[in-house]
């Protein structure tokens, strides 16, 4: 699941160093322990999701393996893009297509 990418969970860039990862992980675990509200959620290109101490520990453990870190970083980089997927393409979906029929609630 893309949203569970370890770099997203830790809110780090895919090129973060091992030291940065450890520091961020400890910081988040501390914040979660203290019950700081903003640490319980994280935002990523896919959306906003809940986070707890277990997910942070899992992400930390996975990123300690260099090969797994490379894999996670590659996947995280793949999910970056500031473009929209061509709204002007002739066969692009008609956003708010139901409004064409006057259906404001669909």
């Amino acid at each position, binding site marked *: 699941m893309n949203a569970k990418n370890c770099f997203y969970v830790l809110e780090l860039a895919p090129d973060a160093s091992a030291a940065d990862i450890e520091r961020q992980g400890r910081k988040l675990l501390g914040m979660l322990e203290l019950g700081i509200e903003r640490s319980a959620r994280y935002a990523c290109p*896919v959306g906003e999701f809940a986070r707890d101490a277990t997910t942070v520990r899992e992400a930390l453990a996975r990123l300690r393996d260099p090969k797994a870190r*490379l894999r996670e970083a*590659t996947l995280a980089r793949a999910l970056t893009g500031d473009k*929209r997927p061509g709204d002007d393409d002739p*066969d692009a979906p008609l956003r*708010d297509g139901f409004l*064409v*029929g006057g259906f*404001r609630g669909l």
Partner: protein
Amino acid sequence: MYGGLPVILFVLVGIFIQSRRKRRSAIGFATSWRARVWLLLVVSSAVGSLLAVAAGQGWDGWLWAIGFATPGVLLVTAAPLLRAAARLGRPKLVYVLAQAWMVFPRSGETQAGATLWAALAIAHRGGATAEERAWLRSRLSRETRPLGAFGCACALLRLLDARAARDEGRAGDAEDATTHARALLGTVTYAAPNAVHSTVRRLTHELLALLHASRGQWPGIATMPDLDVPASVVALRAYVHERLREASTSPRTMRALRRARSPALDALFARKPPTPTIPTAEALARGRATFVAMSRHEPVGINAQMSMLWAFDVLMTPEFPDTAIPVEAREDAELVAAMQDDVANAMVPLLAPNPPPIGALRRFGPVSARVYQKLESLLLNELSRMASGVRERAKETWRYDAAREWTDASMSRIAFRRIEQTFGTAAAAQVWPEYGHVYCKLGVLFAETRPRRRPLAHAVFESLRQDAQRFGDEAHAAQNTRNTLVTSGVE
């Protein structure tokens, strides 16, 4: 004028006897007390107006005749009038009017009909609350004759659910609900003509067309029948036929566009034709953007999905100069394969609800080949699970409430359709014998065990009949033709 009354009575009795003779019960007057009252009121109105014209003199007679005829006309034209009233966005009012007007006397779907119009009013108004959706569900569950209006109402409810889930940020749930709605609307299109009021059929096609357009599933609009549909749907269909296939706009389309008066449709027709070639960097950026959009459960067109697969084939090839694979990993074939697998694993769940025609790809790369293989496993497993479930259900004759059975029948068909959509007709033909046998069992279960739901069974058999004809399976086509005849009534 004196001859009018016997003619009306003769025609009504003729229809009744004819329907009985065919054992189809084209009109469901025999079972529904509301329908009998409806018939009585219409006949009384007609008789009253004729007598008023006969007995009265001058303007008085005509005024009395119009007075008598008005309730009859309102009763006969209730469905189109309610469709128009629903646009006002007053669900409770429309619900009460629908109950009072006894819509759908032929099918006798009094609860489902009223609920459908109420749901439609909410859909036009916008912002269905959880309480309103619960209210609609409770009203719909009272229906004892779940026919076309019932199926359409279930679909509309799922679309309202989808909108609510989207507003609450539950994109995955919204996608599921939309898939259910699309499948349910598809089932209504297979239902017998007697089981679906013409207004409901038009509404079903309208909703399906708008749903296809909003999801970028343009081929679905191209194959829709040329029914009497609103101008917006005419314009959408013309867009597919003229813009995506040829490149001209006919006067009929222009008239439909003017009638629809929609800025979204104008923007659609203003889209530029595709450029034959785009720079590689641009194509890769679009591929990444499509991946991000799909991960957010945003609708994406079929071409964009196919381009995304191509882009990631390129990006995940270590030999490509701008590859996404890090330098330190490029020499490690095992690690590269694991990364390609990761990307494919991330894509498959996003593609599965509405898979692209990946079987049409001419060349496969490291990602598209993996996606193909994983999609094949996933979709065939889904079909196998459906087949096992139906076999067990048929053996034990398990029956559920009407809403669940409509959804089950619809989603079972979708499991097969996805395979055809993804891998083509040849792949679908391979799984057809098993699917045809199992889905037929489901139809027989609905038709022959209590509570009998023959209109739903008819939709199952009709879809099987059409598929059997496409695949050249004469035996199944003949068998399902017989089945559709047996289940074409609404009783």
